[in-house]
């Protein structure tokens, strides 16, 4: 594939590292696909996979944001509420008759502001992000109902609806958005100084500080990223539901955390990739979709999903112990 031996061996070792890193979860994903395609002949179809990707989109995008946060050794439990706030802000701006673009911009800005609040409380008041975002999860969820008094907002713009309903070049727009956001997040994490600083800060905050990295600024920026990603998820969700529901995105933070952790992001910080998170989100999506097709009752789905996460984390910890 290349003409010099050095780049070839570099390429090989890179490939080997990739295989070693993702072999476990890719196998898990394949195993799930095989199980579901055996038990249900409609599972293995292009239409169903398009469907899975669309369902995964909301979780995957929120999980990209969550990956940044967990990578830093923090957690953001408020994203489910931000998803709902985003839908509501969009619906309200549209209701004012300002049109699609201002609605889009203001929705994303709302996500950024809520993330900014999380980040500032965590960084400047030195509160644990777990506590801060447990609190803001509740606060933001309450904010959703302010404009409508708890009722869903139905006033939606046709372009807003089109995001969830239309296709572009044969692929649903939602999938395009996931692909683009995956690439942006992946490149930002793997190839920019910002991504490097995130890894270093998560790996050892004090050493990062001594190396001239502004770890407070990193925290704030990354909570803002998480907020914006959640806002995008909220736009997609409200678009697919043709409305902004006050209970939208409920417990999505758990799926996002699960996707990131399944993908190998370490809750201790400093370790994780967007590729892993994408695969993790697909596992969760396939699991949801397959069990729905088999008409597995919702409560069994919850049990199975929880067990899968436990097993994945246990395997991960065990493989690390063996290396160490």
């Amino acid at each position, binding site marked *: 594939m290349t003409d010099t031996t050095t780049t070839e061996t570099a390429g090989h070792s890179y490939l080997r590292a990739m295989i070693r890193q993702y072999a476990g979860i890719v196998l898990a994903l394949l195993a799930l696909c095989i199980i579901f395609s055996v038990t249900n002949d409609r599972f293995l179809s292009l239409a169903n996979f398009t469907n899975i990707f669309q369902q995964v989109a909301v979780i995957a995008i929120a999980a990209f944001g969550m990956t940044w946060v967990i990578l830093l050794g923090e957690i953001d439990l408020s994203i489910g509420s931000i998803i709902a706030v985003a839908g509501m802000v969009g619906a309200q701006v549209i209701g004012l008759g300002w049109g699609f673009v201002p609605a889009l911009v203001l929705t994303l800005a709302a996500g950024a502001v809520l993330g900014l609040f999380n980040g500032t409380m965590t960084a400047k008041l030195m509160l644990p992000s777990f506590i801060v975002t447990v609190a803001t999860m509740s606060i933001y969820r309450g904010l959703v109902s302010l404009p409508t008094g708890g009722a869903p907002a139905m006033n939606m713009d046709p372009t807003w609806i089109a995001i969830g309903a239309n296709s572009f070049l044969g692929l649903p727009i939602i999938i395009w958005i996931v692909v683009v956001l995956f690439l942006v997040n992946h490149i930002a994490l793997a190839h920019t100084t910002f991504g*490097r600083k995130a890894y270093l800060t998560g790996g050892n905050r004090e050493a990062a500080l*001594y190396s001239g990295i502004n770890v407070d600024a990193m925290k704030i920026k990354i909570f803002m990223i998480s907020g914006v990603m959640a806002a995008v998820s909220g736009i997609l969700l409200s678009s697919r539901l043709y409305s902004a529901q006050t209970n939208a995105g409920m417990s999505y933070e758990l799926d996002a955390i699960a996707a990131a952790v399944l993908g190998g992001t370490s809750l201790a910080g400093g370790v994780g990739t967007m590729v892993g998170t994408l695969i993790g989100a697909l596992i969760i999506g396939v699991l949801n979709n397959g069990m729905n097709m088999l008409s597995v009752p919702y409560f069994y789905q919850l049990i199975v999903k929880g067990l899968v996460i436990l097993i994945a984390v246990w395997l991960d910890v065990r493989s690390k112990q063996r290396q160490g």
Partner: protein
Amino acid sequence: MEHCDVVLHLTGVRKTFGPIVALRHMDLTVRAGRVHTILGENGAGKSTLMKILAGVQLPTEGDITLGGKDFRPRTPQEAAAAGLAIVFQELSLCNNLTVAENILATREPTRMGFISDRKLVAQARALVAELGLPLDVNARVADLSIAQRQLVEIAKGLSHDARVVIFDEPTSSLSDSEAEILFRIIDKLIAQGKAVIYISHRMEEIMRLSDDITVVRDGEYVATVEKDDTTIDALIAMMVGRRMDEIYPPRLDVVASPSDTPVLSVSGLTRKDAFEDVSFVLKAGEILGVFGLVGSGRSEVMNALFGMLPPDTGRIEIDGAEVRITSAAQAITQGIGFVTENRKEQGLVLSHGLRPNVTMAALDRFSGRGFMRSGPERAAAEGEVKRLGIRTGSIETVTGTLSGGNQQKVVLAKWLATRPRILILDEPTRGVDVGAKFEIYRIIRELASEGTAILMVSSELPEVLGLADRVMIMSEGRVATTAPRDTLTPERVMTFATGHVQ
């Protein structure tokens, strides 16, 4: 000799980590009532061997007997129960707990299932007093200096009874007077008929303490000799496989023309309860040694210069202009580099590879428009590995798996990569072997000759006197004196450092 009974016996011990061979073939015979030193270069496998004895790691192959019985501990508890005590090389304390809680961790005295605080403190205090360690058992570990933490580590290691006591580089961050306390403890252990295994890179103390010395090279047993039958030179030759005639490289002429305004000038720097009225100047190409005992405030001053511990009053000037440094980022922008004393906490990201660690303080140099440039980054990491002789599988090796001395070299590499104009070195050769020390000294001299202004804190007096142009001696947070090196003798430095001179 009557005390010649063998306590611990190892044959053909081998340990591999995947493809990496840490110990190839190790033999060792340790006798009661004797100090047995293990000597070897950084990465030779000394700590790995001790971790096997301590039940932290299992050997891949080999036989070990303790007191004639087969010994293969699978946990530290098992090793301790069999009569083995260890003071680890890497500090393993819980920073948010007190000294007492750390010393008696896992062995806390309980009353009806609850930890009895009063008994805990009393027991810890008794132990510390018996060992003669200057420690406040109620202090939080986070508030202690590295040297004090090392003393806590020693107390922790000796908190239970043992037949064999292992010290893995216990003196690497201690100054002479604290080391003396340790030596007295070791003498006592020997008088009680215990066997001591000792690891250090300080040749003088090895010659003073040891009865037997075993040399290891590349994970392989080389020889065991009695102290009286050997010399430092012979030991070094065995250890590195060649002769070394000099410990300090020659002073080089300053190439860059030094201007008369000092690069760094500090006056009246004060921080409550840390240091008071610290003043000094540092010129380009000069090496200013800073010496002081534990608690003298030397590391605190360095942290203040680096923006990590803001001073209450005082003035810092760089190139004649006053500067306010309130963060490490500002210090780095001013051209200051800081090789910190505590490599595990302030120096390295242990879970990451060597490459990102080397470049982490100089990301701007290895990026363009916000994107990392992997070519220059890799080249820099490879260059530093070669220059400092870092023993590692590749530049992607996780730094946490490197040996202690090699980790230290990575910290140094990280700050060399920033190309500082003012380089602060806090214990730069902590845990580094004799050969590598020479290389580091040579690099320090070279930097000075290129015009870098160097502030070097060291608790090793010979190092300070061997390398510095001038020496600033600190005692109890104040500058006792600053004098050219050739006017100082070790005795004079110690009288200033202990505050016996007014």
